[in-house]
């Protein structure tokens, strides 16, 4: 061990400065940061695509892009954002960084596998980028057959392979987390003492392991059909294109929960800290994550009410979809109840978190519209659906992601960001988001189909508002980005526990943590979120 000197304590960032000490690291914290870099890069690509097509969509006629260009832009936005940002963001970055720290372990169970997962993710991303650079892909992120497997005139094989490959990164990360959470908890860290973030990661990992392989094989079948001419989904050879949709949504609906459950975890942590209260109904919140993960596997057919699947199958899918709504409602009620008689501080992460609850609420309630079969027939494949899933994915997941990033930023990098500008960014993003997506509900209700860049003029006011809102939100994101990045150079040292939060990562690890996480043995003797424990308020 290092001799005590006047120099600052060594931490995981300073232990090794060579490029290979990063690229070959098996330290979960460094891998988390590498995910952050990779993911930010993909996010910027996806966001650029959105900025471009929002410009086109402002008016009802085609004035900037040709049809094919527009189709490639929205497909690129969808594929990049779903598979390379939303799915890996919280597990890849925050999950990797925090799971071992929160349960008092030195690392995840399989550190080398963890590094391999990052490389697989980047390799998948490279394939997808290559597909984009070599002429793009225009199938939409859903790769529906037979368009994708026979008719499309774009790089389906490359992009499909990219998504196929990156799927294994999710599977292996999920496997790693489940084993870590089961076997690596510190003495005294019982299941009912686990932070809710861990419960959320656990539920997410189960879906990753059981769902992702199915989309992997499904996309592989599309690739085979397209490249070799096999007949699987092609109606010309007797195939059933609707079977593809079943297999696709068997994964891709649970994938929605892969995206949002980790966000639930983040929200629980931040909410408890900035209201200084234990999460109300801890057990209900913990088990509702598992319930959502379990029921979520049996609702995929609600994407297919108009697809010619049997009406009676539709009934089952519809009723099960409502059942997912119940544990979700419970979570929201418990979060709000947590605020009751708390000591609420509207810090930047808390603004994101409260924004999350409001926006996710709208996203969830509009989900009920889509679960209602008769309403779905009208709203399906319109801008209503686009608005709904952006409320869940961006209003929900992205807000939670930014809440978590701000919340744990001092722990990850040891620096405080500028609180004022962080709050400004949060508020602008919240309002910009609503400006962007609320009008889309109306456009969709009025019948505007999605994936149209040329549309009837009666939808133009809503699309125009949406475009203005999107750029407004873009300004918020830039402020947020600049605030965080500049903190690396100018930020004040964070100290061990700047928020006075509970949890091992705040109370037993330094900021940034030591290479081996904890410098002294970890033993847990308190319940989760015990904000009455005076020890967390003492300066160290």
């Amino acid at each position: 061990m290092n001799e005590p000197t006047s120099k600052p304590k060594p931490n995981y960032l300073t232990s090794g400065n060579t490029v290979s000490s990063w690229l070959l690291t098996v330290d979960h914290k460094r891998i988390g940061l590498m995910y952050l870099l990779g993911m930010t890069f993909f996010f910027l690509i996806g966001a650029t695509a959105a900025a471009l097509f929002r410009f086109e969509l402002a008016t009802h006629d085609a004035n900037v892009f040709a049809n094919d260009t527009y189709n490639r832009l929205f497909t690129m936005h969808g594929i990049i954002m779903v598979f390379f940002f939303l799915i890996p963001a919280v597990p890849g970055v925050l999950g990797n960084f925090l799971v071992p720290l929160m349960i008092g372990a030195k690392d995840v169970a399989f550190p080398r596998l963890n590094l391999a997962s990052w490389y697989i993710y980047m390799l998948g991303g490279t394939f997808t980028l290559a597909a984009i650079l070599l002429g793009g892909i225009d199938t939409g992120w859903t790769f529906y057959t037979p368009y994708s497997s026979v008719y499309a005139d774009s790089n389906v094989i490359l992009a499909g392979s990219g998504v196929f490959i990156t799927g294994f990164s999710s599977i292996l990360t999920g496997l790693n987390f489940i084993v870590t959470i089961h076997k690596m908890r510190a003495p005294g860290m019982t299941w009912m003492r686990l932070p809710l973030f861990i419960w959320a990661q656990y539920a997410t990992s189960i879906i990753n392991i059981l769902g992702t392989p199915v989309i992997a094989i499904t996309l592989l079948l599309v690739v085979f059909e397209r490249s070799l001419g096999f007949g699987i989904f092609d109606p010309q050879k007797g195939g059933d294109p609707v079977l593809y949709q079943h297999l696709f949504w068997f994964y891709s609906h649970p994938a929605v929960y892969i995206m949002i459950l980790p966000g639930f975890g983040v929200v629980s942590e931040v909410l408890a800290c900035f209201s200084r209260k234990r999460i109300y109904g801890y057990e209900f919140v913990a088990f509702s994550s598992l319930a959502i993960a379990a029921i979520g596997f049996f609702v995929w057919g609600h994407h297919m009410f108009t697809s010619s699947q049997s009406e009676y199958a539709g009934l089952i899918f519809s009723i099960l979809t409502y059942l997912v709504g119940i544990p979700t409602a419970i979570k929201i009620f418990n979060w709000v109840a947590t605020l009751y008689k708390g000591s609420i501080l509207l810090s930047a992460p808390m603004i994101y978190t409260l924004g999350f609850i409001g926006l996710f609420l709208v996203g969830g309630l509009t989900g009920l519209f889509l679960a209602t079969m008769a309403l779905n027939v009208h709203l399906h494949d319109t801008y209503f659906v686009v608005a709904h899933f952006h409320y869940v994915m961006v209003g929900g997941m992205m807000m939670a992601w930014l809440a978590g990033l701000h919340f744990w930023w001092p722990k990850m990098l040891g620096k405080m960001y500028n609180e004022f500008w962080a709050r400004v960014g949060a508020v602008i993003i919240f309002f910009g988001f609503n400006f962007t997506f609320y009008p889309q509900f109306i456009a969709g209700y009025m019948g505007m189909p999605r994936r149209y860049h040329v549309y009837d003029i009666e939808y133009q006011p809503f699309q125009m508002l949406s475009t203005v809102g999107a750029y407004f939100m873009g300004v918020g994101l830039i402020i947020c980005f600049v605030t965080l990045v500049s903190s690396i150079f100018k930020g004040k040292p964070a100290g061990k526990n700047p928020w006075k939060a509970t949890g091992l990562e705040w109370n037993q690890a330094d900021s940034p943590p030591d290479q081996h996480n904890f410098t002294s043995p970890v033993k847990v003797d308190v319940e989760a979120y015990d904000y009455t424990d005076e020890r967390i308020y003492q300066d160290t």
Partner: protein
Amino acid sequence: MSHAVTDTEHKPYQQHHFENMEQQTQSTLLGIWLFMAQEILFFGGLFAAYTIYRILYPAAWAAGASSQNVFLGMVNTIVLIGSSVSIVMAVHSARHDDRKAILKWFAVTLLLGTVFFGIKAIEYGTKWDHQLVPGLNWNNEHALHTLQEHAPKNVEITELPKGIQIYYSLYFVMTGMHALHMVIGFGLAFWIMAKTAKGRFNSEYYPHIEYFGLYWHFVDIVWIFLFPLLYLV
């Protein structure tokens, strides 16, 4: 070997982030079972597609299955079951610290695997000759002729049954994915054999061999499902 394993005693094969050997063993065991779970779902997608189309196109399935060489399929099934036995013997040898026997049984396993590939290659080759490979080498007339030749005596095939290309597509994808898993198994086997030869394992520590055994059994079991589904239905 001392059996009084304490937390402080650090075996050379214990990785530093685990508290003790037991934690490491349990973790890797849980990990390999979770990996199996995802493998089951991976093949599960294929079996789901198989089931749907089997119900839609029973005639294509009947004609397709009777065109298969059941004898070769049977031999391959026996060969794979044999390789499962030999890998059990390898694990058994590992338990008894018998390095030579481990290598021997691995070699037997690989040999049986190679026989399987050889037979599979013959079967693929026959299908190629009969122009029964959808997309790559397919000829309706030739395919019809082959199916008629192989049809059971009481069945007369006058035209290509609907969905026949799907049957063959699924045949190639399913057996191909299975073969790919065996190829990966071959790679793993060589790696483990090298480690064994270097003396990395002993009777207390041989997880790689044990988990390879699990993996190999899984691959066998997939075949044991594929054989009746594709050859005998």
